[in-house]
């Protein structure tokens, strides 16, 4: 340990500030998760639609956000949106915008993979039963797609929780940002960063357990 002694009082005294950061992190995660769940499905439907321009827009959107680092997206949106559009939105909304679009693109892919995993015999059965395409989508495709997509959607949400740490770089007071400023104020980086890591971890771990549980249930159901 080389003489470095762990100082628990630093952790205790910095907890209130870390908790206020955590509130911001969780708020961001929750709002973006909802945007991603709904938006992802809409974008996925667009990407699979027969109307070509709609499909092009959706595929371009998905590829753009999946193929650039989230950090680049956040910084780009923070620097360039105000210059391009001449508007100044508050930083939190900007962060929601950036992270929300990012998770939408990833969720759209998750939904798409799930829809493609539905065997073509189901489509044939729908045709044989004379179901309209709307009925087919709502009663046959959608329930199965959502069910199949749940593990990936949850994994994406865990990813989102971790991605929110990036907003610290553009000075939004989330958990990571508070940790960073506390570490510089107190000169106790080990205590602070370990606590920050631990807080993120205890929020990710239960979610990843849920993912494992869902996967098991799904496998049991499908075989």
């Amino acid at each position, binding site marked *: 340990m080389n003489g470095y002694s762990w100082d628990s009082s630093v952790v205790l005294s910095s907890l209130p500030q870390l908790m206020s950061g955590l509130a911001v992190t969780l708020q961001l995660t929750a709002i973006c998760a909802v945007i991603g769940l709904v938006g992802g499905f809409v974008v996925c439907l667009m990407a699979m639609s027969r109307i070509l321009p709609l499909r092009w827009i959706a595929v371009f959107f998905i590829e753009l956000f999946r193929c650039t680092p989230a950090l680049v997206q956040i910084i780009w949106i923070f620097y360039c949106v105000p*210059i391009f559009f001449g508007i100044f939105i508050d930083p939190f909304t900007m962060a929601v915008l950036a992270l929300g679009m990012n998770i939408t693109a990833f969720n759209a892919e998750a939904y798409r993979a799930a829809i493609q995993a539905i065997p073509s015999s189901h489509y044939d059965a729908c045709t044989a039963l004379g179901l309209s395409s709307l009925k087919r989508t709502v009663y046959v495709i959608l329930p199965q797609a959502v069910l199949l997509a749940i593990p990936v959607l949850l994994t994406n949400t865990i990813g989102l929780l971790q991605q929110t740490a990036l907003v610290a770089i553009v000075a939004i007071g989330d958990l990571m940002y508070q940790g960073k400023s506390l570490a510089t104020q107190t000169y106790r980086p080990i205590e602070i960063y370990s606590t920050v*890591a631990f807080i993120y971890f205890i929020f990710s771990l239960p979610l*990843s357990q849920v993912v494992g549980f869902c996967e098991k249930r799904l496998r049991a159901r499908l075989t």
Partner: protein
Amino acid sequence: MDLATSLSFLYDYRLALLTGLGNTLYFTACGLAIGLPLGFIVSIIRHTGHPVLKVIATTYVEIFRGTPVLVQLFWFFFCLPALLGVDLGNVTSTITTLALYMGAISSESCRASLKAIGAEQRDACIALGLPARVSVPYVILPQTIMRAVPTLLSNCVTLFKESALVSAVGMADLMYQGQMIADSTARPIEILTATALIYFVIAFSATRIVTYYEQGFLKRLKL
């Protein structure tokens, strides 16, 4: 501002951006070179190993998957030198973090494909009296790698994108250079867009390769 001035402005900074890109690729390559074998070893340990080793391996994977990469980078930058009492140097700690992160995520991909290998293969190995040092490299490894390659390749793309985070700890990668130029010239739009474009072109072509490989692989398995 017209396109010609923008382009000539970008041309002036091409060397800085290329140096950044070189560093990004270097960090990614080092992370991959260490992380991929590490991931495979960890997945083998988690699959068939001593219970104590299993717990250690699982804890390692869960910690690195459950905390943001940004937090990991900060931890390795500020805490590890203080704990160990040795200065690792910026490059070493960056590469260590990326490699450990890559090891954690790729061990999950390997584990999924290890599970997909039928139990009869293992039984056959036992029936043939193959010791682990023969069965692992000749029976398990080739099949695991073949199945895991699509996921591992997309993990590589993920690592490439995550490597943008090292800019936050002051490593001169592409993102860092882009931000530096943007800040010093006050022309963020050209530079940040160019940076995003460079990331996009590389990651997009990489994902195309993944898709191509995946399709060939699916054909081969006759799925």
